[in-house]
């Protein structure tokens, strides 16, 4: 899911960069001091998740965990994902520095969407609804990210039609795996530390 350097044209790169900058700014503004440690832990989880590869036919895809980041962090997923992607580019040469903006946007926008769509499910007191919320956000965030990656590839050059299609296709099984993992993590956190899901109103 990491788009490398030199694949996209400058228009897409700059649009992605601007959108991500706005997202990161908003995320930092909404990030309360008490939420910073949680954000750091989830950033680390996102950073490591990309190293867990799942073999799919000829190729392999990796875990993303942006659904989990979304339902737990909301807009703070933007800065979290940006930092994780910078470190992945630095340490593992995943993606590239020019495509950082586009990559951040592609991963973080679905996270924020999941926060608004399924956040209330995860926060509910019921036993089943949080599981449903976790499953749906795990699956949807990965699929949406794959679609956004495909779209950025396709908009950059029409020759990218096949790779764009391949990205979506390979991420369908990843979405399934991610759905299960996110649901498991949500149910674990729900039973061990339900405060994690408490909604904190923005005060500044």
């Amino acid at each position, binding site marked *: 899911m990491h788009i490398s350097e030199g694949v996209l044209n400058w228009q897409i790169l700059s649009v992605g960069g601007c959108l991500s900058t706005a997202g990161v700014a908003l995320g930092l503004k909404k990030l309360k001091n008490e939420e*910073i440690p949680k954000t750091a832990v989830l950033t680390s989880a996102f950073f490591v998740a990309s*190293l867990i590869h799942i073999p799919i036919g000829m190729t392999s895809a990796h875990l993303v965990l942006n659904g989990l980041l979304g339902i737990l962090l909301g807009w703070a997923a933007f800065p979290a994902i940006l930092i994780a992607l910078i470190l992945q580019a630095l340490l593992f040469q995943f993606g590239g520095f020019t495509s950082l903006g586009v990559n951040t946007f592609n991963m973080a926008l679905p996270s924020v969407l999941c926060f608004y769509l399924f956040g209330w499910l995860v926060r509910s007191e019921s036993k089943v609804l949080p599981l449903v919320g976790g499953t749906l956000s795990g699956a949807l965030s990965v699929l949406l990210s794959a679609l956004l990656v495909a779209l950025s590839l396709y908009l950059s050059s029409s020759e990218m039609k096949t790779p764009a299609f391949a990205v979506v296709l390979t991420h369908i099984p990843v979405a399934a795996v991610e759905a299960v993992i996110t649901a498991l993590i949500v149910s674990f956190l729900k039973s061990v530390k339900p405060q994690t899901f408490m909604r904190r109103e923005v005060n500044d």
Partner: protein
Amino acid sequence: MIKKIVFASLLLLLLLLPCPLIFAHKVNLYVYTEGERICVRAYFRSGVPAKDSIVEAFAPDGKKIVSLRTNEEGECSFTVPFRADILIKLSAGEGHISEYVLKKEELPPSLPPYGETAMPTEPTVVKGNQLKESPKETNSLGLQEFEQIVERVVERKTEPLKKMLLEIKEKESALFEKIIAGIGLIVGLFGIYLFVKVKLNKEK
């Protein structure tokens, strides 16, 4: 409270599980056999040979067989008069210690097993790493000599392969170091962010 402690210790365990012992200048020991000769090569992580380091070899019962120093290339070699698992210890000063157990299967089967020879035959020490030229005439080779030559050639040919495997192994351990470094950086960055934010708020 107990729940909190369990959660914290689980997290800690998860973080620490893949963490190998990391030394600033880890010294590596590379041991291989050339016929009856046991060759030792010592080098630091950066590839710099560990010269003038003490190499000690021990018999299975803990008896010291030989003690010698590496040469300018960080190499030394010796022979043992028996076939047994040999513990080789390297000490490159300042606490850089490394150990390796040479399995008896790597020594030629023509050697008597340990204990049958009453150890009087002193181990011969050969400093440097040159192959001893066999003075035998090539047209009157006995089966045993022929075996020895084949063994020596195979060892020489497979040495680069062994080195390559070793390098791959090291790269893998470097991956874990990078993961730990990344997590540390993430936590640190968020910590600095929190610190600056709180400080700025106070000044206001």
